[in-house]
């Protein structure tokens, strides 16, 4: 990332009320040009409202938004020419063909006929949709619709791409494809603003991450900085060889364990002092006649940061164990001061 100190998005004092309900509370942050910026937060934290204001769909109650050199809402139309938006739901015109969708987007962005034909062909090729160019989108799979939605957002060569849950619900192949695309686009200079629940996706792709909670930015920094901010918390991950997972008793009573997460025969023990916990785990396995399969220490993950800040239950956070809800449940709740 090299943005020469230039900002793609500059937010100051951004506030949004819906009637008397305060959805976004005095939010400030900058996104550098050429950056991949992750925007995380639990449901109802103000994430969608913030993005809707930045993308000009909603007007803020107070505060300022600047997109490159354009001030919103005064220069919304100019700012929109710089933005490509990929919403969580693929909002393509199902009655039109893939090519028809792209050409229509080109017309709305005032591209010349020559440019839109060339770009549509190019994007159909990049997204592997050339064979389906003349097929109505209603016959497309979810993954194909997703790819077309991203292609439509890129039709006018935007400088900033907003991606809302880009890989949610996609098969592994499509998800990998979109992640590669994000990296490639970023290499070509496009700023990426990524909104996601999938913390590992943010960890993997983003240069910086902001976590919004209850309408306020709770923390902002690189994934490593954020993980470092709670490094006092460490994890001992232990798994046992056993035919029946349910017969393994809880390890939460071991000295030094703050809380325990369990998924089948795998346990994650959160502790401030792993050197105290490891011998106790070995003693515990001997006492209960269990045979250890693996024993590792792990640093804090971005998910841990998210959980600490938002006070969410682990089971409600997706991503760590794939797209589905993790079966692991958290016992205690932590909260980091702002």
């Amino acid at each position: 990332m090299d943005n020469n100190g230039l900002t793609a998005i500059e937010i100051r004092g951004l506030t949004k009320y819906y009637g008397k309900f305060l959805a976004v509370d005095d939010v400030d942050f900058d996104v550098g040009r050429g950056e991949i910026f992750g925007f995380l937060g639990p449901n109802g934290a103000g994430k969608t409202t913030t993005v809707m204001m930045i993308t000009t769909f909603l007007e803020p109650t107070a505060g300022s938004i600047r997109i490159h050199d354009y001030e919103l809402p005064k220069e919304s139309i100019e700012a929109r020419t710089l933005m490509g938006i990929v919403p969580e739901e693929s909002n393509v015109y199902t009655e039109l063909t893939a090519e028809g969708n792209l050409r229509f987007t080109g017309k709305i962005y005032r591209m010349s006929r020559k440019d839109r034909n060339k770009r549509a062909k190019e994007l159909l090729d990049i997204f592997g949709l050339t064979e389906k160019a003349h097929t109505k989108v209603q016959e497309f799979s979810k993954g194909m619709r997703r790819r077309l939605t991203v292609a439509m957002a890129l039709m006018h060569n935007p400088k900033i791409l907003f991606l809302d849950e880009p890989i949610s619900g996609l098969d592994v192949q499509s998800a990998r494809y979109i992640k590669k695309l994000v990296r490639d686009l970023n290499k070509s200079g496009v700023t990426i603003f990524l909104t996601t629940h999938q913390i590992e996706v943010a960890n993997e792709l983003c240069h910086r991450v902001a976590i919004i909670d209850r309408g306020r930015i709770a923390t902002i920094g690189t994934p490593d900085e954020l993980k470092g901010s709670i490094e006092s918390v460490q994890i001992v991950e232990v798994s046992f060889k056993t035919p029946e997972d349910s017969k393994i008793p809880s390890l939460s009573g071991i000295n030094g364990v703050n809380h325990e997460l369990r998924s089948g025969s795998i346990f994650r023990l959160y502790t401030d002092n792993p050197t105290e916990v490891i011998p106790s785990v070995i003693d515990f396995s001997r006492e209960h006649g269990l045979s250890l399969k693996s024993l590792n220490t792990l640093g804090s993950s971005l998910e841990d940061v998210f959980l600490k800040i938002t006070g969410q239950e682990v089971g409600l956070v997706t991503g760590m164990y794939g797209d589905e809800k993790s079966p692991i449940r958290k016992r205690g709740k932590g909260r980091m001061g702002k």
Partner: protein
Amino acid sequence: MKKVSIWSRTIGALGQAWAIAVKDLRTYYFNPPMVMFGLIMPVLLFFSFSVRRGTELSPQLGIINLSSMILFFTASTAGPVILILERRTRTMDRLMTAPLSMSCLLFGKAMVGLVFAVSVDLIPIIIGITIFKVRIQNPPLLAGAVILSAMSFSALGVWFGSFPVRSVGNVMMPSTLLRWPLLFVSGIFIPLSNLPKWVRVVSYISPLTYAHDAIKHAVTGSGSQSLILDMMILPFFLVLFLLLAIRLYRRVRKLGY
């Protein structure tokens, strides 16, 4: 950013509005509510209230009445159907975050109703001219009156469709209830001169009154009121309905939908 002249901005905006209209025509032409409320209903109403009366209806008057009713129902149906469906599928978000003004977007939506209604309206006019040998006194005036009327009614539909609801039925039912009585006070089934005084007052606030009268001027060479008034009031309604729709969308920009 380089300065762009007002002329090229206007041309660009019209191009965007036209692109929206063409896309909508391709997408929604055979949508069931469009066919039901925009095509079948005006024809059924015409035969229910005109042919059934037992009095001889001249082909000339038949064309005037059927043409006015088709324009009114067909043009004002497109807006609610398209806008509400697009909000539900969130394709409207795509347009609301594209580099075009709200007036350009809604003008494009109004053009759909115009094209849809005018193409349907050509059918009774052509049948009247070719089969019933109706002589149109002023064909250019008829073209102008039909286009202006369709545009005003289409803007009315855009206004209906801008109310923040997610179901087409939630707007189609009340809008039909509102449009239906206008048929009876706008000189279609009962001549304006035969209406009681208080109903005449109501007829002046109905755009259908002016559309029907302008078409009557074009077909027969005379009408119930001034042609100039008719042709001036119709664009006024077009602007009024579009402004009301823009106002509703300003609310959407503040509160979402």
